[in-house]
């Protein structure tokens, strides 16, 4: 090899994973089948809030094929309390969180009993033989009513529905001024309340778990994002020795934060497998998944922005109510708090106050969902910038530009204490405007208004940033998070020169195997094809903090890179010994150690083979090149971008059609543009889905009305415009590759762009907000000047059940 190989990093390689995933030639948890394996089904409460007065499972116990029926009372002593790793305040109220309800249910969908049978069908059939008597308790559904003085309580023993209140104030922190003074002295103030509707992660693969207790270690396969955390939490929750548990996340079909959880079903399956001494499998149905897997968002956001007449923002006050649902799951209380750092977004805001009260309701617990806290914040501030521009009679892009951090001002420490390492909002915005034909569309908008066209055009803007790459361990510590934010990586050099990369990141659709191979191929100078990436098994990948918060590349890959550096350092004295020179005379490039100034070289594969033989190594050198590393990031990563959306609103029907969508993202250096493109597209769709389609709706008795995918409207490609995407590249200065996260950016950015476009289209008709999702009926009612909080999906009892015929179809 005389020519330097073309670098792998930057190549739009097809993903290594795709052939097996697309053809189904893989192992999802649900298609794992073990000798003697049993099947579990669970009975869930149809009641949102009730006391369990009696459970009669005698018929189920007699049902064919049934080996065990357990209720909460049967496992009360051993099930522990599901973990919450993020006590945001010292006085946070945390209810006991049983995996199986013992004497009270607090949301519809909570597990009350489980059956283990020889077949999945027998387990399912036997559920019908369990009779549960409930005594109604009052439901608690509305956030504002829940915190009233005379509110009914979800957990009477806590004495309140308020879990905690978390406050950041720039005057107190010394990072800025007093926001109340800024508001009092403002030339202009705008106040708005936005509702972040409740969403459901709706990952493609339902959750599934298999537990095999027959070995010395109990092995759990789970469709999880977090095998390492899960293992630790099982040990801590169930009091089993950590070294006796192995957790495997095989190929996992999406998560979006929804599988960042220690689930009741995982715990129950574990307990029952252990009790029966046989492998047990549980796979949820889609309806179970929608009802009981954790939800996302669900906040009421009140914002007050203060500004001067020239558009300069002088203060921002944010007051939130965040719906926890019935329990605090793994990071439930911290999700809205992550937003605290993002309301100031890309803007220089001199005074800032954030207060969030976390509230219990008798609904499914909320927790992380793609973006977790940052989409809520970004939505609110980007909506406010448009409202402020309207108030001032300025172009919304001009108001943004007036306030954003200039390229030459980086690194910039914000009012909420974060230091943004790099960014170029000017470049991304200029490129987006160019691709979008901003001026042309504004002209068309004016023409349509002029002639009173039935179809009005609106332009929506979102100049966003976000904090990802969770996270510097010290920062997490300062936020009382229960773990660090480091990641682990290792390299095993095989005797034939092939390479095994071990990562603590746990892929569930991201393409780690491809991206890590590209990075390591460049670093070690070995072919892309010669690298295997091992992940998701606590046995092969012994340490890790898993995948969420767009952390894999900016944290996980850095650990791998650092391990590769160590491999090279270990190989160097051996290569020198082989070539009879001094290690100091060697340089490493393209997979070869070359004696500086000569043609003499030795490939790293030759060194690997020499190490394997170990016949002739320098004195005191151990016969191994294998290395590992743990990387703790020094900062978050701050991708940003400018998204522009053109929406056509049919004013006769309220129907919204997205005409064009331009996303110019800056995610720093790009390892694989194809993967980045995929992340952006998927992210955009999920964010647009919040703006237009998705909402988890409960009726007045606390029953989820959107319990199937016929009612919970996940859009498809047919509902989307063709996206125009491009990138600017402002490398991160805080990691070796200059990369930033991309997993959540599209979702964070797109929701406000769409809603801003809709409001912009019909603002001249007297509309200044439409509640999400912006359904045709809501848009139409807004145009009619009807109630702003117009009845949404499922507001009518019986609404939302689409056309599933309860009588059973054709007759």
């Amino acid at each position, binding site marked *: 090899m005389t020519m330097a190989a073309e670098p792998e990093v930057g190549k739009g390689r097809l993903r290594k994973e795709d052939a097996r995933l697309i053809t189904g030639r893989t192992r999802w948890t649900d298609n794992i089948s073990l000798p003697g394996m049993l099947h579990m089904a669970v009975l869930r409460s149809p009641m949102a809030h009730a006391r369990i007065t009696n459970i009669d499972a005698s018929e189920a116990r007699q049902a064919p094929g049934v080996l065990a029926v357990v209720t909460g009372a049967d496992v009360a002593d051993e099930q522990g309390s599901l973990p919450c790793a993020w006590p945001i305040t010292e006085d946070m109220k945390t209810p006991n969180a049983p995996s199986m309800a013992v004497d009270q249910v607090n949301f519809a969908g909570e597990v009350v009993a489980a059956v283990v049978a020889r077949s999945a069908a027998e387990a399912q059939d036997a559920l019908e033989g369990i009779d549960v008597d409930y005594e109604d308790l009052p439901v608690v559904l509305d956030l504002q009513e829940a915190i009233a003085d005379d509110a009914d309580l979800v957990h009477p023993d806590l004495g309140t529905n308020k879990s905690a209140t978390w406050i950041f104030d720039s005057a107190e922190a010394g990072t800025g001024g007093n926001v109340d003074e800024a508001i009092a002295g403002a030339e202009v103030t705008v106040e708005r309340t936005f509702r972040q509707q409740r969403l459901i992660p709706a990952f493609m693969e339902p959750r599934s778990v298999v537990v095999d207790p027959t070995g010395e270690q109990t092995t759990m396969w789970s469709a999880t994002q977090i095998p390492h955390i899960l293992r630790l939490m099982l040990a801590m929750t169930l009091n089993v020795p950590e070294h006796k548990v192995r957790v495997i996340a095989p190929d996992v079909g999406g998560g979006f934060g929804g599988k960042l959880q220690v689930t009741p079903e995982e715990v129950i399956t574990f307990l029952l497998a252990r009790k029966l001494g046989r492998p047990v499998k549980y796979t949820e149905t889609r309806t179970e998944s929608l009802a009981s897997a954790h939800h996302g968002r669900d906040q009421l956001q009140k914002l007050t922005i203060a500004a001067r007449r020239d558009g300069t923002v002088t203060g921002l006050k944010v007051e939130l109510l965040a719906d926890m649902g019935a329990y605090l799951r793994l990071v439930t209380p911290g999700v809205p708090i992550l937003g605290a750092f993002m309301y100031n977004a890309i803007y220089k805001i001199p005074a800032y106050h954030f207060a969030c009260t976390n509230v219990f309701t008798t609904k499914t617990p909320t927790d992380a969902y793609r973006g977790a806290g940052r989409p809520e914040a970004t939505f609110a501030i980007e909506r406010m910038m448009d409202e402020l521009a309207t108030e001032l009679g300025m172009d919304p892009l001009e108001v943004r530009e007036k306030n954003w951090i200039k390229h030459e001002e980086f690194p910039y420490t914000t009012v909420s204490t974060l230091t943004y390492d790099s960014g170029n909002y000017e470049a991304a915005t200029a490129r987006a405007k160019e691709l979008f034909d901003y001026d042309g569309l504004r002209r068309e908008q004016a023409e349509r208004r002029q002639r009173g066209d039935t179809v009005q055009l609106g332009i929506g803007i979102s100049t966003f940033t976000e904090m990802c790459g969770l996270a510097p361990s010290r920062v997490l510590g300062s936020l009382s998070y229960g773990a660090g934010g480091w990641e682990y990586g290792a390299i095993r050099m095989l005797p034939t020169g092939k390479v095994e990369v071990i990562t603590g990141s746990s892929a569930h659709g991201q393409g780690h195997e491809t991206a890590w191979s590209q990075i390591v191929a460049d670093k070690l100078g070995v072919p892309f094809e010669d690298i295997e990436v091992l992940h998701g098994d606590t046995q092969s990948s012994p340490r890790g903090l898993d995948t969420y918060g767009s952390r894999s590349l900016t944290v996980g890959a850095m650990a791998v890179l650092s391990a590769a550096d160590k491999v090279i350092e270990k190989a160097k004295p051996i290569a020198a010994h082989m070539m009879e020179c001094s290690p100091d005379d060697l340089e490493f490039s393209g997979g070869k150690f070359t004696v500086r100034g000569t043609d003499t070289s030795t490939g790293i594969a030759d060194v690997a083979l020499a190490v394997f033989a170990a016949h002739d190594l320098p004195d005191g050198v151990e016969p191994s090149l294998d290395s590992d590393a743990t990387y703790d990031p020094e900062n978050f990563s701050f991708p940003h971008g400018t998204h522009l959306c053109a929406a056509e609103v049919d004013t006769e029907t309220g129907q919204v059609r997205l005409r064009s969508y331009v996303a110019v993202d800056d995610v720093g250096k790009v390892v694989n543009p194809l993967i980045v493109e995929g992340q952006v597209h998927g992210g955009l769709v999920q964010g647009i889905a919040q703006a237009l*389609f998705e909402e988890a709706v409960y009726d007045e008795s606390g029953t989820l*009305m959107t319990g199937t995918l016929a009612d919970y409207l996940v*859009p*498809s490609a047919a509902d989307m415009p063709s996206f125009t995407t491009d990138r600017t590249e402002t490398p991160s200065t805080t990691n070796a590759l200059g990369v930033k996260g991309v997993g959540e950016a599209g979702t964070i950015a797109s929701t406000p762009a769409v809603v801003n476009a809709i409001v912009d289209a019909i603002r001249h008709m007297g509309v200044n907000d439409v509640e999400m999702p912006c359904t045709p*009926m809501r848009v139409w009612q807004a145009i009619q000047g009807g109630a702003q909080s117009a009845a949404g999906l*499922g507001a009518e009892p019986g609404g939302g059940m689409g056309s599933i015929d309860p009588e059973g*179809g*054709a*007759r």
Partner: protein
Amino acid sequence: MIPAEFDYVAPATVDDAVRALADAGEEAKVIAGGQSLIPVLRMRLAAPTKLIDLGKIAELRGVREDGDALVIGAMTSHYDVMRDPLIGEHAKLIAVTTSTVADPQVRHRGTFGGSLAHADPAGDLAAPALALDVEMVAHGMDGKRTIPASEFFVDYFTTALRPGELLTEVRVPKYTGWHAHYEKFNRVAQAWSIVGVAAAVQVEGHTIKQARVGLTNMSSVPVRAGGVERALIGQEATPEAIKTAAEHALEGTMPVADGNADIAYREHLAKVLTSRAVTAACR
């Protein structure tokens, strides 16, 4: 998502199917394409003891001409209906409506007769069937009878089919040379109609000679918009005339509120979409 246990038979002829249905009694269900029944079974909203699958009955598939009518076999898939040349020529409204049903997967499995017999008020095919005055041919142990579309749809998910009867054929009068459009309004592509309007018109020059209009999801059964039809006949096909005629769209409707639309909005949509459907058909 495991259905309760049931027996399954797949007869090869209509006679065998009718006999199987009679033998099985009330607790049996007939399965055509299964696009509505299978979800109901999997969610255990129904637990029939026996399924009688019509999928093996060759005589129930296909479209043929019979004098002044077309005969569409009940088990003809949506996909086959959409691209059938006879339907395209003589009953275009059925073809264009069928092309809006759900998504390609459903259209390959779902059947014309199954959809009509399911009688979902949000299903798209009943409105054009009603508007075009089709006839349903039913087979039972007592032989065969014909039910006009105007009598077939009785209530939510309820038809005039008697216990033990199978819908085997649909006879469609020929509307050769008519123009047609189905205006479907929903939130995502594969969703059911919030409101749908099926319109077929015969236009000579610029004058509407005949019109047939049916509404989806504006009552527990499809609604024939007779008032609109009468108001259209003899009118010039201008947007104003059509819009005026569409003001009659609510006659005979009895819409309900659901998560996607309250009554006022649904009524508003019916008028707007009727106007659009007729306008598009006239084009």
